[in-house]
Structures are given as structure tokens and as C-alpha cells.
């Protein structure tokens, strides 16, 4: 049975599943990367995802327009981000605690709206798979990488874009300097508040899309608490990826691939108790984290509110 694991169907299955499972993590964790690089830890990602998932689903359900759904999810995420920015930047609130507050708000609000506006679990027609001409015909690779839906492609395109913005643009330089040494950035005329507002709102927007990628692209259904801890894993992946988009991509793929591997292990009847199989992605993530994280340093100003010294 273990030898079945290495058949082509299984291998393609594992990789294609992994690519899909990593999608919401990528949106949320890349967004969180921007926030953390500017010195703000946002633990409210999960709440933003849930509200984004609901907004996208409900708008799609009522209007039938998927793009309007995505747009609404982005706006909802951005508004949550705006509120988070006000609380952490203007009010200098403790970031971890206020983030958890925003998570609970998103959890409760998405459930309330779901109960009041829908009342029962329904389905929509989500983003269809797009077979990229030429590429999707390549055996194996085509099926794994080029037969996914639009929001999946978007998540992977986001990685190089985020890398470019963070490392090659003035904006990226400002974000990094605000996260490393806000006093110095401030003395050079960079508005710490404005940069942080930007990154937190951007993070919220991307978390909104992460939610939408679940509710109208991958699953096409909304249910109470459907993210089920995804948003928190996304925050962990930012640490895992050492605050770099490419590292985040690696972490998201590793976690998701192991998760899809364990699904197959159970299906093929490999004699491992299900409880152990389910633990695998988490155990492996912890191991890699222990091995890798000691080498890199977090942004110096992470979780520290900025107050100008007079």
C-alpha cells in the first residue's frame, strides 16, 4: 500500500491538492508580511478572512457576479484593516490583544450575518477552473499547475509582486525602515503612521481575498467559522517564512503538501492511525520552525507602537 503512494495519480493528486490548499494561506500570509515588516502584528487575520468569505459569498449569491463578490470582500477586509490601523497606530493599543479582538468580532459578525441573511447553508457557482492554453496540456505539470481557478493563480502571482514591492521599490524601503527603526525613518521624513495604515489596510484587503478564495473559488459554500484556524496558521507562516514572501510561499506549500499527503495516506489505507496522520503537517511545521527560525531576526519594531520623542 505504501508503494501506491508513488504512483502518478497519487503524486499528481497530492501536488494539485497542495497547490489549492496553500491558496488562502498565501493571500493572508503575504498581507500579514507587509504589516509585520512595518512593525504591526495583526492577529485579526482570521476574522478578516471570515467576514471576507461571507461578504464574497453573499454578494455572489444575490447578484451572481463573482467579481463583485471579490471586490466586496476586499472592501470589507480593508475596512477591518482601517479599524485595526486606527486602534494600533493612533491609540497605540497592544497589538496582540486588539488583533484577537478583531478576530472575535469577525467570527461573531460573519456568523450573525449568515444567520440573519441566509439562514441555511447554500452553494454558489464559484470561479471555474481555467485551463491555460498550451500549458495545461503538458502531462502531469499541466494538471498540477495550470488547471486551477483564477484566484489560485492570483495567489501565486502575488508572491513575486510582493517580493518586488518590498525589496525593489521606495515604498518597500519605507515599509522596512518603519519596521526596523521607526525613529530614524521618522527623522528622515517618512510618516510612520501613514506607512503602517497602508500596510495594515493592504493586509486586510488581502485577507478579504483569502476568505473569498475559500467561499467563492475553492469551496463555493459559506459556513459558520469555516476558516477554522486558517488565519492563525497564516500568521505563523509569516514567522516560518522569515518575513519574506518567498519564505512564506515555501512554508505555505510545505504545510499544504503534507496535509494533502496525509489525506492520501489515509485513503490508501497506510496503517497509520488517523490522529497521527492529521498531526503530521503541524509537527513538521514546528520542526522546521525550530530549525530555521533561530537564524533570522524579526523586524526590530514588531509589535512596538511608535511614539515620537520630543
Amino acid at each position: 500500500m505504501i508503494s501506491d503512494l508513488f504512483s502518478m495519480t497519487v503524486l499528481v493528486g497530492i501536488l494539485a491538492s497542495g497547490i489549492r490548499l496553500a491558496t488562502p494561506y498565501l493571500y493572508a500570509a503575504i498581507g500579514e508580511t507587509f504589516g509585520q515588516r512595518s512593525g504591526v502584528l495583526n492577529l485579526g487575520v482570521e476574522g478578516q478572512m471570515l467576514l471576507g468569505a461571507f461578504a464574497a459569498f453573499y454578494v455572489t449569491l444575490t447578484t451572481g457576479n463573482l467579481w463583485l463578490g471579490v471586490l466586496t470582500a476586499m472592501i470589507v477586509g480593508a475596512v477591518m484593516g482601517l479599524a485595526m490601523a486606527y486602534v494600533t497606530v493612533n491609540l497605540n493599543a497592544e497589538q496582540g490583544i486588539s488583533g484577537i479582538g478583531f478576530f472575535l468580532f469577525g467570527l461573531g459578525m460573519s456568523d450573525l450575518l449568515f444567520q440573519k441573511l441566509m439562514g441555511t447553508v447554500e452553494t454558489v457557482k464559484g470561479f471555474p477552473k481555467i485551463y491555460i492554453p498550451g500549458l495545461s496540456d503538458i502531462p502531469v505539470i499541466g494538471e498540477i499547475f495550470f488547471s486551477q481557478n483564477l484566484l489560485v493563480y492570483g495567489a501565486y502571482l502575488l508572491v513575486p509582486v510582493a517580493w518586488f514591492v518590498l525589496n525593489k521599490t521606495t515604498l518597500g524601503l519605507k515599509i522596512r525602515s518603519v519596521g526596523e527603526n521607526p525613529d530614524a525613518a521618522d527623522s528622515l521624513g517618512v510618516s510612520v503612521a501613514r506607512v503602517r495604515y497602508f500596510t495594515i489596510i493592504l493586509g486586510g484587503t488581502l485577507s478579504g481575498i483569502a476568505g473569498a478564495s475559500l467561499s467563492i473559488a475553492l469551496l463555493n459554500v459559506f459556513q459558520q467559522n469555516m476558516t477554522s484556524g486558517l488565519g492563525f496558521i497564516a500568521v505563523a507562516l509569516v514567522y516560518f517564512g522569515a518575513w519574506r514572501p518567498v519564505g512564506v510561499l515555501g512554508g505555505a506549500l510545505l504545510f499544504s503538501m503534507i496535509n494533502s499527503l496525509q489525506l492520501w495516506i489515509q485513503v490508501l489505507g497506510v496503517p497509520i492511525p488517523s490522529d497521527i496522520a492529521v498531526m503530521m503537517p503541524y509537527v513538521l511545521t514546528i520542526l522546521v520552525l525550530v530549525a530555521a527560525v533561530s537564524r533570522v531576526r524579526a523586524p526590530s519594531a514588531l509589535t512596538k507602537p511608535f511614539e515620537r520623542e520630543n
Partner: protein
Amino acid sequence: MKKIAWFLTLVVALSLVLSACGAPATPAPAEKFRVAIVMPSAINDLAFSQSMYDALVRVQKDMGGPEKFEIVYSEGMFVVDDAAAAIRDYATKGYDLVIAHGSQYGSSLQEIAPDFPNTSFAWGTTVDTFGQPNIFAYEAASQEGGYVNGVLAATLSDSKVIGVVGPIETGDAKLYVDGFKAGVAATNPDVHVNVNYIGSFSDVALASEAATTHISAGADVLTGTAQMVVGAIGKAEESKVLWFGTQSNQASLAPSIVVASQVYHWEVMLKEMISLIQSGTLGGKSFTANLANGGEVIEFNGDYALPADAKTLAEETIAGIEDGSITITLLTND
């Protein structure tokens, strides 16, 4: 000193206010039966919690509407501590029956029930009343419906591969899955059942991916249990693969592919409990919902064209389980 005095005044004032609030509640008119229920997920989860809520609504209808039968509920009580607080609140407010709908609430209930000897409690799914005179226990013989679904699934599968998406390998879910496997094995031993427990009751994304995995492994019939299966049903519909439901009727979600659902009709148990309570027995008894007593019903989806011989087979199986001519042997390990 001044601070302490101020603080004491505040405490005294507060305790006065609070005790005023807690003053003897006006007893409800005797003819109205009042039920409170605490549930782990939402009343519309299309699964465990909804099965109980729908049953309460049916009891309400039979007993003469909201004037005769009051239902209040707390849903989404994933946190056991919150649930325990809610259970205590309802008991304090003098409800006739307080239902703790989740086996995880058991130890809380064991502590709370002795404090309210005149209130009746019910909890499930379990058979354990803790020897308390005011606790009813209820459970579902979900292996029975699982068996019937399994028989039908084995009959309808062309690829001879069937996939199961489960939450955590325990309790009601395990019972259903094991019953399902037994049903398949009894009908056609050549059919292979792949089982996948995803380790969560809420991870819709992983449930969906588990369904995709089953389909890639060749399954043309799927089933699954608990509230996260809505993700799996979506995938089944997309791939035009058949689905068997349990706990609540899941046909509304994917009318073209849901063949049948095992639905819990807890009202059979509830009505017995209520008449016991009205005659002065507040607990100490455990109930099992099964096909024979109508606590479990196999609901066929009218929108799915089930071949007549398959339906006959299912009906014969149900009758066999009811009269005891079919005994279900659970294979606990592969």
C-alpha cells in the same frame, strides 16, 4: 482608607442590585412547557445541531405552538466553559428541560445538575445519566442508518470504490462510518471503502480536499458526517459523484447527487422525556434513537432518480434492521 470605604460602598450597592435582579422569578404558567438547549454549532449547520433544533420545532408544532411550548437556544457553544455557564443560566431561570446537546458538555452537567434538583436535564449523545435522578441521556444508533446507506452505496457504485469523509474517529461519527462500512461489506465485499478522518469538525477546506482525494482515488460514491462535510458535498456535486448524508437531510445542498440521508428525529425521544417530566420523573433514563422507534429515518431525495430495485433493497434492509433479522457487526479495525 477613603478608597476602601468607597470600594465597600460599591460592593454593597452592587450586591443589592444583583440580588434584586435575582429576586424570585415569576413562575411560568403551568400549562406552558419551557425548553432550553445549548448546542456546539449553529441551528442551521445541516448536521448535528440542526437535527435537534428541527426536532424541537416539530415537537412545538405538535404541542400547540409557541404558547404551549417555548424553545430558547444558545448555539455555537464550541467553548465548553461558555456552554456550562449557559446551562446554569437556563436552569436558574426555571426552564422545565435543559438540553446539553454535545457529549463534551457531560462533565459540566454532572456538576450543575445536582444544584437544580427540580430541573430536568438531557444530554447526548451518550447513554450515561451519571446516576442522577434529573438527567436523561440520549444517543443515536447511527450505525443503523450508516448500514442502510452503505448497502445502497455498494449497489450504486460502478467503480467499486467509495470514499468517506469523517471528522474525528470517535463517538457518533465513528459509529456511522463503521455501520456504513459494514453495510457495504455485507452487500458486495469487492467494493473498497476508503475512509478519511480530517481531524476537525469545522475545517470545510480540508473536508473539500479530502473529497477531491477520494474522487482522484476512483470513488464514485461519497458519504461523510459532521458539519464540515458541506465542503465535501460541494466537490461531489462538481464531479457528479453520489452523496449519502447523515444527521440532517442534506438534499437541499446538492439535489442532483444526494441519494438519501439518515435523519435524526429526536422528537420521538423528546416527547417521551416530556411526558415523563410532566408525570414527575425528571431523569435517570437513557434513550436510543434507531430505525425501529422512528428516532432515525432514512429520507430519500425525491429529486434523485433512484432505481426501483435499489429502493426496494434499501426498504428491505430497513425492515430487516427494525425486526432484528439483520444484525450489524461492526468491524472496528481494518
